[in-house]
């Protein structure tokens, strides 16, 4: 039990997918203007990441490795991830049109979210079991959602601030997330 918790903490905080591994920066910058849509994006990414982790693990262990097709891994993973994202898109469009509107182009772009592919590949690299890769995917998604939420909160506040014209918009957002990464360095070296 404590091992599960530690793995989750380590993937979510200590090795945060956005701030330490620098994966998935596109949606982090793109869908962090309001906390509500950030939360939706976090949920959608969590959904995709967990499903993709599982699907890619199965694909890799049951199909690619037995057939000796390891070199097709990236191609096959992208195919699987794209399908999962398509499915998620249909699902969100059906269940929550408002969220669908606010996620906009970023929802299909989860396909090219390097965090998803990155986590799937890292799972293979570290030779996790199915359960562990699910956990790893979930922990990463948790960290992604957390950072997205925190960052969206900060950006909502910055949107009300009198940022000089030269820094308004993306520049100040980049500076903010770099300072956030600085703060997350406090977790570094934790041997949990």
């Amino acid at each position, binding site marked *: 039990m404590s091992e599960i918790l530690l793995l989750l903490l380590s993937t979510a905080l200590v090795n945060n997918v956005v701030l330490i591994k620098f994966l998935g920066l596109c949606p982090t910058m793109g869908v962090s203007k309001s906390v509500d849509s950030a939360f939706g994006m976090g949920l959608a990414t969590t959904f995709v990441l967990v499903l993709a982790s599982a699907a890619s693990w199965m694909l890799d262990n049951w199909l690619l490795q037995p*057939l000796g*097709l390891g070199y097709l891994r990236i191609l096959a993973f992208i*195919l699987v991830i794209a*399908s999962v994202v398509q499915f998620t898109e*249909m699902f969100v469009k059906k269940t929550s*049109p408002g969220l669908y509107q606010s996620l906009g182009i970023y929802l299909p772009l989860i396909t090219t979210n390097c965090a998803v592919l990155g986590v799937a590949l890292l799972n293979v690299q570290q030779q996790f079991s199915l359960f562990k890769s699910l956990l790893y995917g979930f922990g990463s998604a948790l960290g992604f959602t957390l950072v997205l939420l925190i960052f969206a909160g900060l950006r909502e506040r910055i949107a009300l601030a009198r940022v000089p014209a030269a820094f308004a918009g993306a520049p100040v957002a980049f500076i903010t997330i770099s300072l956030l990464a600085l703060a997350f360095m406090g977790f570094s070296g934790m041997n949990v």
Partner: protein
Amino acid sequence: MIAAILSMTVLGAALGVLLGVANKFLKVEGNPVVEELTAMMPGSNCGQCGFPGCSGAASAIVDGSAPVTCCPPGGKALATAIAARLGITVDLSAMADDGPKIAMVAEELCIGCCRCSKVCPTDAIIGAAKQIHNVFREACTGCSSCIEKCPTEALSMKPVPVTLQHWVMPRPATA
């Protein structure tokens, strides 16, 4: 090589079938947002936006070909309402909105030709033929459709006069 092609094909086909099935179950009919926006618009179909009527403008806004600020009679209030409904941010500073305006008739110029009252979408211009017309203030949307119809330029758009009841405390100067 063949194994690779085959496996990818099979994989692709399988996922495609799965998505196809999912699409059957999760299909969304029509776009309810357009109707919602149409209900928010002034509804006088004045045509100032350049679209065929208010529902045309609504669908143009929804599919992104028109800005939310495209409706002059709706003004800033409508633009913010639509933006809030669509969940987008809108830069209102670009929108010229110097308060509501209504049409007024210069009585000395009016010849009573009735051309203006024929185009008014809300029947706000009253007066029979050969008699001086007048604008019914409460009904005028400020769409200015009538302005160009007037042969004697007796019609003009004037800001609605401010009264004690309608006065708004000015915004503090920003520090």
